[in-house]
């Protein structure tokens, strides 16, 4: 044992110094974040101006545009409840909607692998078109490339989307503040379990179908509810002057100047943060928000809406539903006095029927998410590292 040279010893994990990309870099957890912070942002230099939310908000000629892009590499292409085509629309629509924006248009880019059945591409394209119709967004530009057989995986899709942010709305991770109610729009872990259930080598029977859905209608409903209620009382000072350069000033509110919580509620609206918890699940999304705002999040485990089939599948595979992906759910951080009314509005919408409060933002343990367990203990809900790995036994 004593022979090991620790001076020259390089730990094989976290692959921080990995010369090659590993799968965990795409897992939406700590490794993904590190790739962005330590590789992309420094490499982009002064051109980088990303707020690191789901979408950027840009002011163009007096209008604030939300802008986002996402690539879709899901395997299998078709799964219970949806396909890569549905995800390509809904994923980007939702990223845009998480700024409070109304999505307008998408670009679509296909990277096709030589030898893929044209019929399959047709089905994906059809699903994509249908999803866009349902979401009410136009597909306005696109691109197609083909790569050699073996250099892709049948079809990769990239979409980018733009939308318009209503005046007076400022929704961004940094706006989370102590006291906020943490809401979720319905059952969690559904999409991830649906996809896993038909993944090669893991097929298992479940009635779960992906929850993939466009959420901008739900967001609009939530915004309407609080605008209607808040307008007479507090929102007079919020109209139009608070847009700022949302993408660029992420630092200004960090550190949690808690004293200003109440008065700040009116500026930008009482819905402070919206997030669709996709890769990395609810756990990753909450950790990112907690870090961006310098606040803590306290969850109540027994309040988490985890449907029985998801509980069962996770129990079998040794996975935690908090880390399993969702494609049609959102998390909302809402000023406490508006929480009930937002919940009510969410429940009246088809994509928010199962909305519940799952936790609270606290000033304690900044940047950490903690849950009270069903038995009454507590535990930290950490950012996943890479991909969640099924346990051995």
């Amino acid at each position, binding site marked *: 044992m004593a022979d090991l040279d*620790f001076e020259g010893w390089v730990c094989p994990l976290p692959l921080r110094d990995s010369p090659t990309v590993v799968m965990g870099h795409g897992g939406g957890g700590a490794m993904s974040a590190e790739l962005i912070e330590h590789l992309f942002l420094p490499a982009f230099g002064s051109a980088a101006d990303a707020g690191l939310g789901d979408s950027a908000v840009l002011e163009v000629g007096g209008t604030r545009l939300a802008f986002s892009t996402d690539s879709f590499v899901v395997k299998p292409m078709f799964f219970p409840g949806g396909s890569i085509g549905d995800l390509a629309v809904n994923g980007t629509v939702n990223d845009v909607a998480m700024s409070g924006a109304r999505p307008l248009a998408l670009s679509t880019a296909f990277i096709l692998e030589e030898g893929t059945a044209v019929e399959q591409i047709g089905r994906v394209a059809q699903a994509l078109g249908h999803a866009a119709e349902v979401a009410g967004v136009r597909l306005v530009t696109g691109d197609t490339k083909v790569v050699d057989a073996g250099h892709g995986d049948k079809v990769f899709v990239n979409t980018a989307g733009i939308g318009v942010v209503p005046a007076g709305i400022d929704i961004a991770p940094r706006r989370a503040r102590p006291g906020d109610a943490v809401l979720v729009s319905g059952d969690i872990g559904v999409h991830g379990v649906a996809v896993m259930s038909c993944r090669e*080598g893991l097929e298992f029977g479940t009635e779960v179908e992906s929850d993939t859905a466009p959420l901008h209608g739900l967001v609009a409903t939530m915004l309407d509810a609080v605008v209607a209620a808040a307008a007479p009382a507090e929102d007079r000072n919020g109209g139009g002057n608070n847009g700022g350069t949302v993408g660029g000033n992420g630092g200004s509110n960090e550190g949690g100047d808690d004293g200003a919580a109440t008065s700040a509620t009116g500026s930008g609206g009482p819905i402070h943060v919206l997030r669709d918890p996709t890769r990395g699940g609810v756990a990753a999304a909450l950790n990112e928000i907690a870090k961006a705002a310098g606040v803590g999040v306290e969850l109540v485990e027994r309040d988490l809406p985890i449907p029985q089939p998801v509980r069962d599948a996770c129990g079998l595979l040794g996975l935690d539903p908090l880390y399993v992906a969702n494609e049609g759910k959102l998390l909302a951080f809402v000023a406490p006095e508006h929480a009930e009314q937002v919940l009510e509005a969410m429940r009246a919408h088809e994509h928010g029927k199962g909305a519940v409060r799952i936790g609270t933002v606290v000033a*304690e*343990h900044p940047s950490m998410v903690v849950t009270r*367990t069903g*038995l009454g203990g507590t535990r930290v809900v950490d950012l996943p*590292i890479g991909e969640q790995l099924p346990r051995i036994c």
Partner: protein
Amino acid sequence: MKYLDEFSDPELAGHLLDQIRATATRPWAIMEVCGGQTHSIIRHGIDQLLPDAIEMIHGPGCPVCVTPLEIIDKALAIAAQPDVIFCSFGDMLRVPGSSQDLFRVKSAGGDVRVVYSPLDALNLARQNPDKQVVFFGIGFETTAPANAMTVYQAKRLGIENFSLLVSHVLVPPAIAAIMESPTCRVQAFLAAGHVCSVMGTYDYPELTQKYQVPIVVTGFEPLDILEGIRKTVLQLESGRHELENAYARAVPEQGNPTARRMLEDVFETTDRAWRGIGMIPGSGWRLSDAYRGWDAEARFDVGGIHTDESPICRSGEVLQGLIKPHECAAFGKECTPRNPLGATMVSSEGACAAYYTYRRLEAPATGAAPVAPDAPAEPVGVGRG
């Protein structure tokens, strides 16, 4: 799922905790052998809810954690070879060998695949006759029957391009080794329920008598664990040392006779090194003579690989229950789940990873400021033994 939710009921848990509180009159140190139990205890905060008198010591029952570095290095060497499809359970991919892990081998072009059943690996062998397909057969008596079945089937079906890299370990010899240790603090064991569901409970009465130590076969859900602890404390308080079964819904005395016959056919007992602990005589299985032809170690000529372990990692002492994870100077500093020095920090069943993941936030009862995310934390329930 039936048998999952019923065994997490907070009210019933409260009753069991009350009974444990009422029974325990002095400090007792109980080891849960299995990593699955450790995970459950920490995840549900059971150790926080137990009375101060009861100290849970986290045992060496995480299969990922105790697989020796040398075997990991052999796995990496095999996986990196051309024309090899290397199959493994998911959580072995992240375990660091001495210079890399399977994820990195995969990234560098190795064909490394996660399978959920070893029989999937055998199917891969049939589908890829021009490749050598290797399955990483690690784990306790729990994973062994399925692994044995693959080799049995490979022989029966004449599948020559399949082999098993075997590093199986056995619970009863580990319990004996812990009790023989001069620094042993363990006064009772929660035996691993799943191991007993395969092997039965025949090995344990002898251990209870030889070492005068209570052993209670225990399951994995919160109520299972609390019931195991309750039975253990009753024995300790009354001076008994017997085998009891608190997991009867899954564990008959004879275990699973079909699986045991398969194991006896395919494997034979061997001395086995445990990561962080060292060589324990008769504590492992290797392929028996009749199946030696499917042994990946022989097929790929990796016998020359010998690896030593990190000198600053104290996972061996953690695995033996001599220290709690946070008492290691490297815990949360040099050693984190992203940067593990020892295997106990890698698997979610590893005691160090469980403490790091779930117990970084332990604000003292006085309400003092909680620790920062990356600082080592003082877990609740530590230092009361």
